[in-house]
């Protein structure tokens, strides 16, 4: 494995990462748009939190939760609750799985471990970036970072395993066990 944590560059954070492009044929822009639309419109909880899909490409997703006073954990500090971070990292990780070139039909969380480094800045949006770095036949592995502007100064990081449901009719050839 090479460097596990691709850093976005300024111009085009995801598309320009050669290792991600090397993963294989990415989804078409239409497919990506469809995943993004389904994620926001059909998944009520995502829209309830005001989540915005910032980018989605070949197993990498970026999402944002704009600051909302209703979602604070402590009204005095005006810091978003850890549960918002949990929801964002979980949702963003799921989007990363769906956008992976392996072509998942559906996904759900098996397990998710979140480490909290520090509280978000008062009044700040939270941004998450999740990467599905490995997709086996039945399981997808995702790591993710939540930050409030600087990805090198994270609020939280997470690692998760996700159910990878394949499209029903045709059985894909097994690339891997698990």
């Amino acid at each position: 494995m090479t460097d596990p944590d691709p850093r976005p560059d300024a111009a085009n954070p995801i598309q320009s990462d050669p290792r991600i492009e090397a993963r294989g044929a990415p989804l078409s822009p239409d497919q990506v748009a469809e995943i993004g639309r389904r994620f926001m419109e059909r998944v009520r909880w995502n829209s309830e939190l005001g989540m915005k899909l910032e980018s989605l490409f070949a197993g990498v997703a970026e999402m944002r939760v704009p600051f909302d006073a209703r979602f604070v954990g402590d009204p005095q500090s005006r810091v978003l609750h850890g549960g918002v971070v949990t929801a964002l990292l979980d949702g963003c990780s799921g989007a990363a799985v769906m956008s992976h070139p392996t072509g998942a039909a559906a996904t759900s969380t098996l397990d998710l471990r979140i480490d909290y480094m520090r509280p978000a800045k008062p009044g700040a949006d939270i941004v998450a970036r999740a990467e599905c770095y490995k997709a086996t036949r039945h399981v997808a592995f995702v790591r993710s970072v939540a930050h409030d502007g600087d990805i090198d100064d994270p609020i939280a990081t997470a690692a998760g395993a996700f159910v990878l449901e394949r499209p029903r009719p045709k059985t894909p050839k097994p690339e891997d066990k698990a």
Partner: protein
Amino acid sequence: MSARPPRPPREPAHIVEARRDAALEALVATVPFAGVLGIHFERLGDELTARLAFDEKLIGNPTLPALHGGATGAFLEITAQIGLAWTLVWARMEQGGEAAAAIGRGEFPALPKTIDFTLDYLRSAGPRDAYARAEIRRAGRRYASVAVEAWQEERARPFLSAVGHFLMPSEG
């Protein structure tokens, strides 16, 4: 502490219980996000059970349908955090004197901060109320370890289980 203050006359139980319920409600109200999720706590003695009232907004998978893992994860995190904070509040209320009076005025200790939280999604959660209870496995001065489980129809069939570590507020 050497000399104990003289014991005040015993209060009627319903007054004590009403005060505890009011303190619990006020504690939960300090976390606005708990209200957005629709979380309420029920209390039997010092034991709390959290309830996540079903609402369409909690749906994560409209096909099944199932509750969103992010929403149920946040539910467990709040259950653990309030469960821990409640032990501090309870201790102060039992202590009486100024500590209990401060709780009565709504002056709560700072909430424990999550260090890490690990969620184990055991099965999908249906479109109905969910319940959760936290078990404090270790409550140190500085760090606490909490296990939480959530279920719907059958307590013996939890849909989500979690363990987390928390940093306790500095002053006692």
